[in-house]
């Protein structure tokens, strides 16, 4: 495929610039291969995260020609022959160095979510669930935590409301718990107040960038919003609960 030119962000929290590198690109290479070649030949200290190189671990998220992508799944032959490839770190989180962002905020959000609390087992010591029912949550559990959805979420990226909204990644984590056939924990009050489901205005940018093609908005966030609405804003249900108070999930 010949020589290709890359513009790669180099810098840290104090500032930086794009550096240009020119490398030979072979057939079948993905952007991450190119970063590795730049690293090996021109810039040993070029920082980037990666692990599985097969789209399964979600480590190598970056912005490639302005689009949030997994660099291990972005083939070079998807670009025009003379196109310069611009690579920069995901923007919604503070920069550590070069292509590496500090995503620790996400790990803090996860800790806030009440853990799975299963109902008692059947008398023979097993749990029974229908495949149809588990498939609903399996969709959410495909998430590889690449945080591309967090990166494009307007609430986090443009408005920086990280103190009020956990972001799409953790909305689907919540959905995976709330829709888990065995779970008995009630997280709806916190989904409303603490995790900020109401802040999502359903632009579906998160769904568009999800490399696992999870229907984050339609299958995850919207049903959670509906649960909040029916709990807090449905007048008939409200009345019933007033008359027959009991814990209701």
């Amino acid at each position, binding site marked *: 495929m010949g020589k290709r030119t890359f513009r790669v962000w180099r810098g840290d929290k104090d500032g930086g610039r794009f550096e240009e590198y020119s490398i030979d690109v072979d057939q079948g290479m993905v952007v991450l291969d190119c970063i590795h070649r730049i690293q090996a030949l021109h810039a040993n200290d070029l920082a980037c995260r990666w692990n599985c190189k097969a789209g399964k671990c979600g480590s190598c998220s970056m912005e490639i020609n302005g689009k949030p992508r997994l660099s291990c799944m972005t083939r070079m032959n998807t670009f025009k022959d003379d196109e310069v490839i611009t690579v920069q770190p995901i923007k919604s989180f503070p920069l550590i160095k070069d292509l590496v962002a500090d995503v620790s905020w996400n790990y803090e959000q996860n800790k806030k979510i009440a853990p799975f609390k299963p109902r008692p087992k059947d008398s023979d010591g097993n749990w029974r669930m229908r495949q149809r029912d588990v498939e609903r949550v399996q969709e959410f559990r495909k*998430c590889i935590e690449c945080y591309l959805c967090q990166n494009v979420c307007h609430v986090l990226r443009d408005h920086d409301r990280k103190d009020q909204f956990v972001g799409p990644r953790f909305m689907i984590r919540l959905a995976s718990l709330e829709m888990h056939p065995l779970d008995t924990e009630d997280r709806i009050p916190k989904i409303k107040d603490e995790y900020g489901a109401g802040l999502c205005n359903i632009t579906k940018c998160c769904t568009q960038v999800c490399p696992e093609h999870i229907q984050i908005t339609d299958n995850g966030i919207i049903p959670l919003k509906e649960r909040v609405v029916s709990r807090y804003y449905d007048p008939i249900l409200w009345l019933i609960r007033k008359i027959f108070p009991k814990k209701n999930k």
Partner: protein
Amino acid sequence: MNIKELQTFEHDVLVVGAGGAGIRAAIECAQQGLNTGMISKSLLGKAHTVMAEGGCAAALGNVDKRDNWKIHFRDTMRGGKFLNQWRMAELHAQQAPDRVRELEEWGAVFDRTPEGLISQRNFGGHRYPRLAHVGDRTGLEMIRTLQDFCVHKGIHCHMECTGLDLVMDDGKVAGLIGYWRETGRFVLFKAKAVIFATGGGGKAWKITSNSWEYSGDGLGMAYRVGAELIDMEFTQFHPTGMVWPPSVKGVLVTEGVRGDGGILLNNKGERFMFNYIPERFASETADSEEEANRWLQGDKEARRPPELLTRDVVAKAIKKEVEEGRGSPHGGAFLDIASRLPAEKIKKKLPSMYHQFKELAEVDITKEAMEVGPTLHYFMGGIRVDSDTQQTNVPGLFACGECAGGMHGANRLGGNSLSDLLVFGKLAGDGAADYIKGKSFGNIDEQQVQSVVRRATDILNREEGPNPFLVHEELQELMQKNVGIIRTAQELEKGIEELQRLKIDIYKVKAHATSQYNPGWNEAIDLSNLVITAEAVARSALLREESRGGHTRDDFEGEREEGLTYNVIVKKNDKGEMEARRETRKDPPHTLAGIANATLEELEGGDG
């Protein structure tokens, strides 16, 4: 450096590595009320466990009631060519079902049987459908379950922190020195016990399914403080890695493809595995396509297709077909699922394989065959541990998961690694918790700390030296060529000789710029462990003069009776040199030997 200025953490137990085994070990320690620390080179949840696709082997008997732990044990021993540590294989088969059920209790969502129980799939070497699974992303499900569970257990999780070396006090483990990737600053962990769960060293080979993390860190660190390594000659070449395009060469294609009916073909369209059935498995393997197909339809009288023979057998068969000119265009074999299952079913059962080939190779596996070939995937060998406690010969040092040796013998069955890491992760946690009872923190010797730190900083401070990335490439070429899937004494000796030369380069590598998130520096540090790992494999391989499981000698074909009588042990000698020796195996307990050699009919059904 003054040791008092060094950032210091104190933990009862420090776990090194946060893949499945590490997290499971840390959970065990934390549940026993210990102050538990865990460090990982990457972010939490990114370890190689996510790459495990097919499933987690456990004799739950949900799909075929004839299954029980004894048959799982028998399969494991036969797959390991009877070189496994008997007690480890026993504990593993007995405890795996509870470990899987426990994961369900912690939120894992496995695929279900029509009755609603955990579903189980067929896999190579497993007599019955035994692998609990979630499509073809079982590893991700497991690590995420463990991760989400462990964050509520008060474990101190130190991410992007790499271990450099253990600190010893009077022959016992007293802690570990590491560094933060982000800042390059050094950190001391004082600990009463340390559990290594650091994975293998696949990165010493060029064609591998392993990521940058698999540089044998635990093996290197343990070796340096006098721990023994066992069975290092047994390296698993997974038969089905991608072979095209070059940039993805080695990336794993799950055995689940074959478990779900995929067949291997050569360029003449022949289903060649029928020609490679070893005698030991002949009575349990189909000898015609017709019978293999009946088995796939669920006929319990039919025998298993030869594609589901153990990984060592399949990998060597593919290599042979290619060598004899019957390979695919890019030097592999064809793996065909397209003609075996309807497109919709393939997408449902093997979603990530569909995705992987579509995105990386522009191949639609519902329409075309995949091209596959062997890729270095897993280390059967590793740090030698006590079968019950997982303690090494170094007091206070424990090991579990891939970095520990003995459980799998000469060859690991697919699906037995996910169960291994759960079973032995827990046991290592138990072992460490027992060990530290009544113990206090050891003394930290300032000189040891300083020499470790100096070794790391020298890489940045020296004026010039070889490029660590290029030295790594050289190591990979060397191992691929001389310590590959088929070995000879001549090549192994040459490999060992070249490794001595390369070692000198490794001690001279130069990393540029600062220590802050510097992959060049990180790579340079990893190389010192990787080269120890590589040398241990080469020396062990030279000593085993036979072909068995994951170790194949062109100059010593076939299994030799004598080969069953010893394990190869690697240790640093008094002069600081690496020494490999044969150690005689103890006779197995009578009952276990009986189970391993029993017929299936004698073992089937009930609790075994």
